[in-house]
């Protein structure tokens, strides 16, 4: 098998911002002393006057972004998911969500794949927090292609958007020439009639690998990529409940409140079916190399395969 190209979606974020910045003068980027890590440093190099470093003060950064959006700018406020969704939750809710401001939040370093920094910096709760806020769109792209498309889509959407990016280099899986990103639309990456793996973000490529492993055991798994967790694509989920026997949701996020819960919300109300949630099981992460952590927490292909086999 040829070497698969890998790139971290935080890198895609930085690159996409530069492209957006070239096309639109009103795009400004905010950071909270993490420009080197969130990759907004790439934008800073291209547009130094339109990059605003707020210092280590994320709550204030969200307010400043709100003020910028009220005066004609399109701000992209950037920091780690822990601080964007966690520390500044109430600022995002009251100062961005409630007045429905055109603020984009670029949250990098989501999930346990942050790696060595450990539990304090591994945000497994951001999707849950952000999707409860009315007016908020929540996007969790799976690779470089999708991440760049998501940034563009976030710009085009009028209103608040939360984008979740990762630190770990992720395989590029959406590089076909006919790839199109549509906000709120799930993507069937692999047809299957036995079960459905519904994955988001970094877990999408692992889900595809797991489907290959399951195939060897005679299990025909459909794989759906949900890049937009809110608004979620109800139709693609309902269809999967009709056409396959069981759903497995897979996310690098707590099994409480994230993709799994969002899918269950749809299934419970509209098409009762059995759903098994694969994710971080109501626990904190820990230090270690990202891939080793993903293995330990059973969030790599092997871990997904194992959990599907045990719960099918």
């Amino acid at each position, binding site marked *: 098998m040829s070497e698969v190209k890998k790139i971290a979606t935080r890198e895609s974020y930085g690159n996409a911002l530069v492209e957006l910045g070239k096309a639109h003068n009103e795009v*400004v980027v905010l950071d909270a002393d993490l420009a080197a890590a969130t990759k907004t440093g790439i934008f800073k190099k291209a547009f130094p*006057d*339109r990059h*605003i470093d*707020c*210092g280590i*003060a994320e*709550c*204030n950064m*969200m*307010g*400043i*972004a*709100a*003020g*910028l*959006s*009220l*005066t*004609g*700018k399109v*701000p992209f406020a950037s920091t780690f998911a822990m601080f964007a969704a966690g520390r500044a939750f*109430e*600022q995002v809710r*009251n*100062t961005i969500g*409630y*007045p*429905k401001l055109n603020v984009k939040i670029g949250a990098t370093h989501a999930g346990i794949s942050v790696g060595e920094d450990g539990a304090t910096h591994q945000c497994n709760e951001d999707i849950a927090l952000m999707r409860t806020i009315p007016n908020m769109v929540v996007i969790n792209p799976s690779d470089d292609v999708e991440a760049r498309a998501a940034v563009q889509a976030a710009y085009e959407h009028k209103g608040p958007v939360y984008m979740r990016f990762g630190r770990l280099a992720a395989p590029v899986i959406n590089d076909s020439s006919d790839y199109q990103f549509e906000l709120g639309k799930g993507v069937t990456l692999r047809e299957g009639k036995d079960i459905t793996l519904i994955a988001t973000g970094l877990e999408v490529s692992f889900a595809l690998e797991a489907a290959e492993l399951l195939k060897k055991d005679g299990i025909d798994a459909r794989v759906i990529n949900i890049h937009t967790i809110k608004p979620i694509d109800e139709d693609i989920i309902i269809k999967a409940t009709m056409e396959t026997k069981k759903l497995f949701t897979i996310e690098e996020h707590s099994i409480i409140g994230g993709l799994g819960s969002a899918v269950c919300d749809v299934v419970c109300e509209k098409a009762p079916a059995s759903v098994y949630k694969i994710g971080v099981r109501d626990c904190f992460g820990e230090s270690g190399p990202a891939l080793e952590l993903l293995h330990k927490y059973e969030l790599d292909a092997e871990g997904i395969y194992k959990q599907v086999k045990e719960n099918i």
Partner: protein
Amino acid sequence: MDILDMQKKALEVRKGIITGVHSAKSGHPGGSLSAADIYTYLYFEEMNVDAKNPEDENRDRFVLSKGHTAPGLYAALALKGFFPMEDMKTLRHVGSYLQGHPDKKGTPGVDMSSGSLGQGISVAVGMALSGKLSDKDYRVYTLLGDGEIQEGQVWEAAMFAGHRKLDNLVVIVDNNNLQIDGTVEEVCSPYPIADKFKAFQFHTIEIDGNDFEEIDKAFKEARATKGMPTAIIARTVKGKGVSFMENQASWHGAAPNDEQFEIAMKDLEKAGEALCQK
């Protein structure tokens, strides 16, 4: 500035506050009344705003960081013509655009939703920064409570504003000395307030915030100050203008009953008659 005219307008604003809070049977009269003179000055003397064109991109902006004193802001906006003063009676009623705390989405003239303390100042700072980035000459004003500045975010915002030398920004602290649990000194003293803003690279001015001459002088000085933002520490009387509410922490968040409403309105009428004899 015609001081007598300002004083008369401020009385109308105060009547609007009492009318709204009485009709709502809840709300925050104390801090609305203490800042009534500042609201009046901002909307009738200082700020470049037009009730017929509330979304003008070159207008001055106001963010009410101490959002619970929305009745004061609403009464000033109504008096300025953004909406009918009669609507003050719908304050906090189901379906009214006059929400308990300002909601910019449905209220003409409200530049930002606010109410969760400590957050409005950051938004004002963002607006001021935006003006600098776009080379626009609008000015931005934000009103904070003296209890509100116990919130750490206020100082994050102040640090940034000083760092960026936002001389198009004026932060006003309504220093009425009272918060819900008592005097600000008893609860968690924010004093010395001016020195704190000075340390964050602000020009500071301390005034009697219920005296139009001093208010006028302060805002003119702020306008003339270049290279740094200005903080106006306005010493005020909580409940100002209503005899039984003055300097009473208990009137921070309570509404007058029918009898108290009559007394309050009589107080304000009497003050108005006194002004007419001047």
